[in-house]
């Protein structure tokens, strides 16, 4: 079949001879696409690149070859700044970008990413369900900050609605949150820890800034995995948060390996604190009903060698809640901005 030389219907430029009768040509001048038979397929440029850019005034950063639009800073941790970002393309992805503020802590960023990668590949019971409730790794690499310093960065998938840490809850409710809300937070956190322990890991840093809640769906997400270790390896946690020393059992700060019991102690201390009590003792205020008060206190003093299972503690929590509040029912928990 003879192939004719075509002119672009968009701008009139000559097009190169087509390679085949069914081929599609792209005009080098205006970007129009034309079928080799001369029928204009897309007479005007409609390339994704021609879509208006998303939020053109926001800064862009590149991690591992992918460019992201920084939407704003979600918060600051002990060594990282955490940003909400989205892939800078029409087919996008919402992500959380974690960038080391303290350059010395680059290894912690890498370590956290590796551990979360291991979880995503875990075959422990319940992995299909629980890996969705852990931060999901997207990419890691270096980013250049505005003055040109290169910083360690990790990208995780954004989980809609998980935007309030327990630290923030205590700011909103200085007197402490509703004990009935503390019950679901405790149970959800115990479920995740149950999976994590079964997979052979201890989190090692169950602290208020590392527990994020979804107030509407009563969900809890556990972040801050840089300190997690496989508890059978006898390695210590790499680091501890200086500002949260009260939440750690003393032996951890001495360099002991965290165990499942360590996580349960830290979780109880965290909840006692967010209820308005003191972390170091795990004592909640007296308005917290007796059964919960006692359970929190006992959990906060667990021995490190204690043989405990997060799932059985969850049953204890349910029993204490039944005793304190009667049969479970949905009690809305609100934060500013939420209906």
């Amino acid at each position: 079949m003879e192939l004719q030389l075509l002119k672009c219907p968009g701008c009139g430029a000559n097009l190169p001879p087509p390679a085949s009768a069914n081929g599609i040509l792209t005009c080098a001048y205006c970007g129009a696409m034309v079928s080799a038979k001369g029928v204009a397929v897309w007479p005007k440029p409609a390339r994704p690149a021609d879509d208006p850019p998303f939020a053109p005034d926001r800064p862009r950063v590149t991690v591992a070859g992918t460019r992201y639009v920084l939407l704003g800073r979600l918060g600051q941790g002990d060594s990282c700044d955490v940003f909400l970002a989205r892939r800078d393309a029409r087919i996008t992805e919402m992500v959380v970008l974690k960038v080391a503020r303290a350059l010395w802590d680059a290894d912690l960023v890498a370590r956290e990413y590796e551990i979360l990668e291991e979880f995503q590949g875990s075959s422990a019971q319940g992995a299909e369900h629980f890996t969705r409730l852990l931060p999901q790794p997207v990419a890691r690499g270096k980013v250049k900050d505005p003055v040109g310093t290169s910083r360690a960065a990790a990208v995780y998938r954004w989980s809609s609605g998980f935007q309030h840490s327990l630290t923030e809850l205590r700011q909103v409710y200085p007197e402490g949150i509703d004990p009935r809300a503390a019950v679901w937070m405790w149970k959800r956190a115990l479920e995740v820890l149950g999976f994590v322990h079964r997979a052979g890991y201890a989190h090692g840093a169950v602290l208020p800034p590392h527990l994020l809640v979804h107030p509407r769906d009563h969900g809890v997400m556990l972040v801050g995995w840089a300190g997690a270790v496989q508890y059978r390896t006898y390695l210590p946690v790499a680091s501890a948060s200086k500002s949260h020393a009260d939440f750690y059992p003393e032996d951890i700060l001495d360099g002991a390996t965290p165990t499942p019991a360590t996580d349960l102690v830290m979780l109880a201390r965290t909840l006692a604190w967010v209820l308005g009590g003191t972390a170091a003792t795990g004592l909640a205020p007296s308005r917290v009903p007796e059964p919960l008060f006692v359970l929190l206190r006992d959990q906060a003093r667990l021995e490190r060698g204690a043989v405990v299972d997060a799932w059985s503690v969850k049953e204890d929590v349910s029993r204490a809640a039944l005793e304190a509040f009667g049969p479970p029912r949905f009690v809305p928990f609100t934060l500013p901005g939420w209906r």
Partner: protein
Amino acid sequence: MGYGSYSSQAHEALIQARGTLSRQVLFRQERCHPLMDPRGVNWRESRDSEVHPTSLGIIFALDVTGSMGDIPELLARRGLPSFMRALLDAGVTDSQVLFMAVGDANSDRAPLQVGQFESNERQMDQWLTSSFLEGGGGTPGHESYELAMYFAARHTDLDCFRKRDRRGYFFMTGDERPYPFVSHAQVAALMGDGLEKDLPVQQVVDELQRAFEPFFLIPDLARRRNCERYWRELLGDRVICLEEPGDCVDVTSSLVGLCEGAIADIDALARHLEREGRDRSRRGAVIRALTPFAATLGRDGTPRPRLEDEHLPIDDATSGHQRLAPRDGR
């Protein structure tokens, strides 16, 4: 194509009649139906007509290898009428649906089968049930999804896009990864196209999204692990993980509803599904599957996170961490 109009009652009646038929009777093809052979097809067209002045092209590219054949069967038995009804409820009146069946070009006899865009229930159903559920599949970890995307990108023409600048929808189901390149040899053998060289799958996605909103649906959580990361690199938040294959219809119709603005946000979707009579657990599953994508549209029904207007840090701050040494010098 695309003549005739959609009747929900007729469609229901059609579905009712096949309640007890086995898969073999329902999908009786034993080879690629000659009309579904992509060889030599120039264009599959979704056109406006007097009956359908505002057509909207929708492609279902269904993986028919191995256990993935469940989804075409689900659609044929009960899914398709509720998909169409949900679109009508969502204000999408002139949808035109094309079915593709996807297999593996290295080992299947019919790795790509292509129907036509149809608005009429009988024809739509006919294309679906004319698919040959070969049930094969080959190289572990890969299927020829890239060929389906290539066909949709280069061999379809949509009036909704051409005349109204509105993209159609491309839904693909699957549980494996695509091959990284569209092979020019396979394209020549299957469709008769001459490509000068292999096309990277990334470029095919880029071409596909000119005229389509592409989505990839993974049928259950256990199969996420095979392929989710890979597809997310290609399609970002448009990779949707279902909790069970039966949610496919609710998820796809809700995606169209959300994108077209007929469903305002996830809360509105929850109410919509409740009206449709979905039980609590199915509603939850559909909402969990769709929330990440809804968040990219700003329609996840949660308040916008409080964000500080900051760029990356520039100073080397002191660490808030205390480094711990192993006890006993271990």
